[in-house]
């Protein structure tokens, strides 16, 4: 199987502290993957590296069929290449309407001149209404996103990701602070998205991961501790020692 993203031998340290230590990881197209691990395991830092926010000290990050190195690309170039990211805390543009948030994310030419002359067509509006329906915000399109509830903001952010039509979606702790019903909706959204693209979900909550029903990678102290089905990794003694046994 050809891999969409291949991370190999990546290390990064902050002031001498190795946050990521010789990490290798790969994911194929249209694959759903969960990454679990205790706090400080380096899950967010891993996403920072893939999306170009943090430059690793060593290692390779290779993307797509053309095997491009992501390490020489800027954040915006990486995003345009097809990697979308959802942050740990919901980051939507609170001062702008749900509609504007989605419109900004919609896959279109991103250069200033083109954006300046851009005026939404009927099909763009249609696409946004579709997305809004998917994330359950059809009635909130004209509301300022700052007025949304916490869960709705998380969904809006997922909707913005979908609007970008990325090939790979990196989702950092999407269920944090959500009610049970909201979590279920979120699982559905992610599983649906993973049918047509690769999705990597970082999550703390075991129940949530179980519901995702996918391959799991366990991260510990910046490297992979175990990989496999959830049942497989939860039986692994190392995993029990560092994570589950606590």
């Amino acid at each position: 199987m050809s891999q969409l993203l291949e991370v190999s031998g990546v290390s990064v340290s902050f002031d001498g502290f190795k946050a990521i230590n010789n990490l290798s990881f790969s994911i194929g197209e249209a694959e759903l993957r969960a990454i679990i691990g205790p706090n400080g395991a380096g899950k967010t830092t891993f996403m920072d590296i893939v999306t170009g926010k943090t430059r690793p000290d060593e290692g390779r990050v290779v993307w797509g069929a053309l095997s491009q190195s992501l390490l020489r690309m800027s954040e915006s170039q990486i995003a345009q290449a097809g990697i979308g990211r959802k942050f740990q805390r919901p980051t939507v543009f609170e001062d702008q309407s749900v509609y504007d948030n989605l419109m900004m994310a919609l896959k279109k030419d991103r250069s200033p001149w083109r954006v300046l002359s851009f005026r939404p067509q009927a099909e763009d509006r249609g696409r946004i209404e579709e997305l809004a329906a998917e994330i359950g915000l059809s009635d909130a399109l004209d509301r300022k996103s700052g007025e949304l509830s916490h869960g709705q903001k998380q969904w809006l952010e997922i909707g913005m990701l979908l609007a970008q039509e990325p090939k790979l979606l990196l989702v950092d702790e999407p269920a944090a602070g959500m009610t049970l019903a909201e979590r279920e909706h979120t699982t559905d959204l992610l599983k649906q998205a993973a049918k047509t693209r690769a999705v990597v979900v970082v999550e703390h909550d075991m129940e949530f991961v179980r519901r995702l029903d996918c391959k799991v990678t366990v991260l510990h102290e910046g490297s992979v501790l175990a990989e496999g089905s959830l049942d497989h990794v939860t039986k692994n003694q190392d995993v029990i020692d560092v994570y589950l046994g606590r």
Partner: protein
Amino acid sequence: MSRSFFARNPSVLIFIAVLALFTLAVTMASEAAGSGALSTSFVKTLGKTLCLCLVALAMDLVWGYTGILSLGHMAFFGLGGYMIGMWLMYARTESIVAASMSNAAIPPTDQEIVDAIGTQIFGVVGSSEFPPVWAFADSLWMQLALVVLVPGALALAFGWLAFRSRVTGVYLSILTQAMTLALALYLFQNDSGLRGNNGLSGLQNIPGLTGVPQADVSLWFFWASAFALGAGYLLCAWVVSGKFGSVIRGIRDDEARVRFLGYSVEGYKLFVFTFTAVIAGIAGALYYPQAGIINPAEIAPIASIYLAVWVAIGGRGRLYGAVIGAAIVSLLSTMFTGGQVPNLPLGFYTIHWVDWWQVLLGLSFVLVTLFAPKGIGGLFDLVTGRRSPERHGADLGPDSGSFQEKEAEE
């Protein structure tokens, strides 16, 4: 511009209507119209104020919308003034020199005329040679092009260096202050080629219009300034109304997030910085012929700080706020510092407004920042009922996931 543009931005129509009425009223009350209710010098003051409103608009775009607190935009304003000033001074001196030499027995050669102009213009700095920067001074069209090109090129070069290195926040503000200070200090030198601290003067005398009274000229410039402000307002409103406006406000609120959406934040900042510098240059080119004189003190760092204060007092992040702030504060400033406001005797001390105006202005800035962050423009929200959402960006702590204040309280 479609009908829906005005439908979505009713404030634009209102603004244009108010500006048109104001222009009409001033025209009818001017000396040129035979009324004399407004003196020519006051018409000039109003015309200059409109130019300041235009540069405030640029400031609002770069600061209020994009979140770049540039404290150097008056440098672009001044450069625009210098560019037009060079032609005004050259062409007028040329006509004077030509007139005086035409009486000579032997007709002067072209070179003799140019030399005589040089002596006239650069005598004050002990020179008579034309420096290279005056190469195009004899051409109105070239100098008009430079009004746009010089501020634009400086902004492009400066912005490219600064934004590419991801200089943001207060560091960027300091850098822009350094830029305007460096430019002012350079221009102060006699050998900078722009007459050092003398600056360029006599700019109110428009070459070719010697027979036209200042009352008329002042009104023409007032119209030109009003037109430029109206056009600038339309253009800025158009820029911020669509997706471009969304993106730059996104950059202001969370630039990292905009990057991860695939927008080149640096490219957008450079675009806005340069665009607004060009607007500032045009505003300056209209301002200084009305002021009559430009010298390097005009682009001292404090000038750009004032610009930020106007926009803050007027209300940043809304175009009419910037205009209102610039108009009110600069007019008040003219009144107070011009001694038009009677001194206030307190018995034990007399408040001389000429001295105390700065203090009053500084105090209002602090008060507005603390108690009315939306500025004067915020008053309009009371009418229209526009409210901004509660913003509580921060997590309670890393371990509570994304719980925020409100959810945690519930």
